[in-house]
């Protein structure tokens, strides 16, 4: 309790938030003192983001109060929150691609000149932002248009935006979900610096290692309720997981039931649009899970989408069980049993405003149809079977997809493909932003698929996951497969070496 000696800077008292049909938060209290790093963890849909949005004035609580420096606030808006010194890095990117980095960082707080004219002092803005960017150690300039940045760089812009506020409280909602390891390290350093200058930080993440590294105190949410707290000394992986899901987690790796078959997916010199100079060859046999690791932008998604027909290959051949696959259209890929669970669930994975059954059957409708017409009963039956098989937590198959939590949404995406007997199943970041409990279930599904003779390719940037789940790891670097690792050779060091352009020999040392 040593950390709590300082008076709380900021308090939320017994806040609740109800959305139609969902009680996102129920009577949660939270307080934070200057210079404290509070780790906030919990499963998907536990209410972490909602709690932070209330703190940041974006969402109005259904009940409860906000207390700042001892004053109770009845109305609490973004403006007031900003004035009170709260800076917020949202879970989703909130950038304006049509503006440059400096404009994005200072949006809403532009330095002005000529008084009443309210003109923007562009030079001053650049100067200020450049200073912040240097502090973050990033490699782009303040006048770069944001549309030219990678996702990781965008994430850094978000962080720069929060830093530029000179905030008293900094909220980071999964800031590292798309950052690479070095970038994450850099961020954790910055957090340590901020802590020294007495800034309070609330840090949300699903990567527990980061919490262990930086948090002074951990608060756990479960199903919208306060599920416990841990002081610095009590923080450990196991205790956190137990508090989050209310039970212990089994080890991730499940060995395959049998040795992989010879058949499967093989790529010969496939060239993608993103890296026209590189040809990729690789092989995924039926019955094995191949992890595809690499840094952001290594070209994995691009490759997966090319195989699954969303993009046209510039060259090369794709074979399934030795036979050439007609590439270039999703329909053709689907016809040969190659499916992709894409990395961006909300944008490309789901029809958020359709019910579960519509989502599960959308790719297979013509087969389910009697003549031209959709077979409604058959459709519901398929959805019901898949939902119970994947234990989707939803009131019924006519529940709208957008009301589900992230993990359940991901299961719906999987249900869509599993109902169609895949031959090759590609998972692109299958657990991005998904909580530990659901992660375990999804790993189970992958293994079951492999055991049923499916060739499983898993793209992931989560080192723990790649190492913990795969039977074999391939690593990509700038469009090339820079190496492969067998299970015995798995190590974070080896994967990272390959991912940053090292050779296989270096990786083995």
């Amino acid at each position, binding site marked *: 309790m040593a950390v709590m000696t300082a008076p709380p800077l900021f308090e939320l008292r017994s806040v*609740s*938030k*109800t*959305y*139609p*049909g*969902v*009680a996102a938060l*129920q009577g949660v209290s939270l307080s934070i003192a200057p210079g404290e790093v509070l780790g906030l963890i919990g499963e998907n849909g536990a209410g972490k983001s909602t709690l932070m949005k209330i703190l940041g004035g*974006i*969402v*109005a*609580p*259904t*009940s409860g109060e906000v207390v700042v420096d001892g004053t109770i606030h009845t109305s609490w808006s973004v403006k007031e929150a900003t004035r009170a010194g709260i800076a917020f890095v949202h879970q989703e990117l909130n950038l304006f691609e049509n503006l440059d980095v400096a404009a994005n960082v200072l949006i809403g707080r532009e330095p002005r000149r000529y008084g009443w004219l309210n003109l923007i002092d562009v030079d001053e803005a650049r100067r200020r932002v450049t200073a912040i960017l240097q502090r973050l150690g990033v490699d782009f300039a303040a006048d770069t248009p944001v549309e030219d940045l990678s996702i990781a760089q965008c994430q850094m812009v978000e962080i720069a935006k929060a830093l530029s506020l000179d905030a008293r409280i900094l909220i980071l909602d999964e800031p590292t979900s798309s950052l690479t390891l070095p970038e994450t390290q850099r961020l954790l350093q910055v957090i340590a610096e901020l802590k020294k200058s007495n800034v309070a930080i609330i840090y949300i993440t699903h990567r527990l290692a980061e919490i262990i590294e930086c948090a002074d105190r951990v608060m756990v949410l479960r199903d919208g309720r306060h599920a416990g707290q841990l002081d610095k000394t009590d923080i450990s992986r196991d205790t956190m997981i137990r508090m989050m899901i209310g039970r212990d987690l089994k080890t991730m790796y499940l060995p395959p039931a049998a040795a992989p078959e010879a058949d499967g997916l093989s790529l010969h010199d496939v060239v993608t649009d993103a890296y026209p100079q590189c040809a990729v060859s690789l092989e995924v046999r039926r019955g094995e899970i191949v992890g595809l690791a690499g840094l952001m932008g290594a070209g994995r998604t691009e490759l997966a989408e090319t195989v699954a*027909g*969303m993009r046209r290959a510039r060259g090369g051949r794709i074979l399934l069980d030795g036979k050439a696959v007609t590439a270039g259209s*999703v*329909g053709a*890929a*689907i016809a040969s049993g190659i499916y*992709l669970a*894409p990395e961006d669930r*909300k*944008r*490309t*994975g*789901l*029809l*958020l*405003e*359709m019910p579960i059954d*519509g989502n599960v059957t*959308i*790719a297979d*409708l*013509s087969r389910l*149809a009697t003549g*031209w*017409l*959709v077979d409604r009963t058959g459709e519901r039956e398929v959805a019901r079977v898949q939902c119970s098989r994947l234990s989707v937590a939803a009131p019924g198959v006519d529940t709208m997809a*957008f009301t589900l939590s992230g993990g359940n949404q991901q299961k719906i995406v999987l249900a*869509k493909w599993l109902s169609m007997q895949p031959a090759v199943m590609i998972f692109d970041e299958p657990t991005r932003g998904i909580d530990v409990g659901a992660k375990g279930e999804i790993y189970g599904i992958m293994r079951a698929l492999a055991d049923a003779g499916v060739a499983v390719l898993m793209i992931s940037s989560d080192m723990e996951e790649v190492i913990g789940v795969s039977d074999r790891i391939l690593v990509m670097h700038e469009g090339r497969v820079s190496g492969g690792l067998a299970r015995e050779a798995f190590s974070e060091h080896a994967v990272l070496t390959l991912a940053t352009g090292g050779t296989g020999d270096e990786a083995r040392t």
Partner: protein
Amino acid sequence: MLKKELGLLVLILVICAITTVLNPQFISQVNLMNLANQIGLFGLLAIGLGLVIITGGIELSVGSMLALLGILFLKLLVELEVDWPIALIVTLLAGTLIGIVHGVLITRLKLQAFVVTLCGLLIYRGVARWWTADSTEGFGYGGGFETLEWLASGRFMGVPHTFIFFVVVCCLMAIVLHRSVFGRYLFAVGKNEEAARYSGLPTNLVIVAAYAICGLLTAISSILFVFYTQSVSPSAHGNFYELYAIAAAVLGGCSLRGGEGSILGIALGMILLQVLQNLVNMLGIPSSLNFAVMGAVILIGVIADRELQRRRRHRLVRAAPAGAPPETARAGAAPGKTEPHAVPSSRA
């Protein structure tokens, strides 16, 4: 889902009842049949536009197409003295073709539907005027298409064929939209085109098909209109009709963001608009107020719909299990979720 349609139906009935009280001739058979005829004439346009709107698109050139296709049909029939079945088929094909071109420009070249069809609006009107040298085309002394004339403008037991057509098309389209695989694809594409593409749907084809159907229905409508007005004046024929059709679809519950709407709703929307037009005449309201009445009713309808939705959401929140206490007022105005595409573009 059906709540919206029910509300619209009630509104129509109330308006009809009031009008009847003020002027009982409103429900005379003659008037109802005239009304039915108007609904039939304009209804097809609204159905076509509704499909396009459901895919998240828009079609602004309907009025101009009506003029150009009408003139094409008359030229074929009267000047080239082609047999009517051929003239009919050529016109329908031309309409479908225009729709396909729009669809291809939008999907292949990734142009915005608003821009493409705005250009269509200008171009087709211009071509129609230039082709006829700005003079009205009529049937003149031509003949030999009595069957077609009877089909297009006759009555069956007092009911205008146009209305019968409309009902048939509605039923057909209701099945297509709400029961068929294609219909499901239309909604899917309208709700989230990317996700639809990633699920292997032929999204471009679906969109092109929607525009093609819209073009075909417009072409059918153009022929019905030709027989209704007996002539086509290239500069005025069909002016602003796209707006009526869009208004009907919106009144009927289509969202211009795509992915929402029903045939029943669109049909009721058009019925309401035509009832309004008719009552302006039946009650002797100055014709000049015609537009104003229409605009006001659409606006009120849309606001009421929005308000009802808000209330319902409100009620749901109150009904939510958790001890949901006071400050509900703000929860009602909940952000985000109901409009997941609340990106600025969707406001357009």
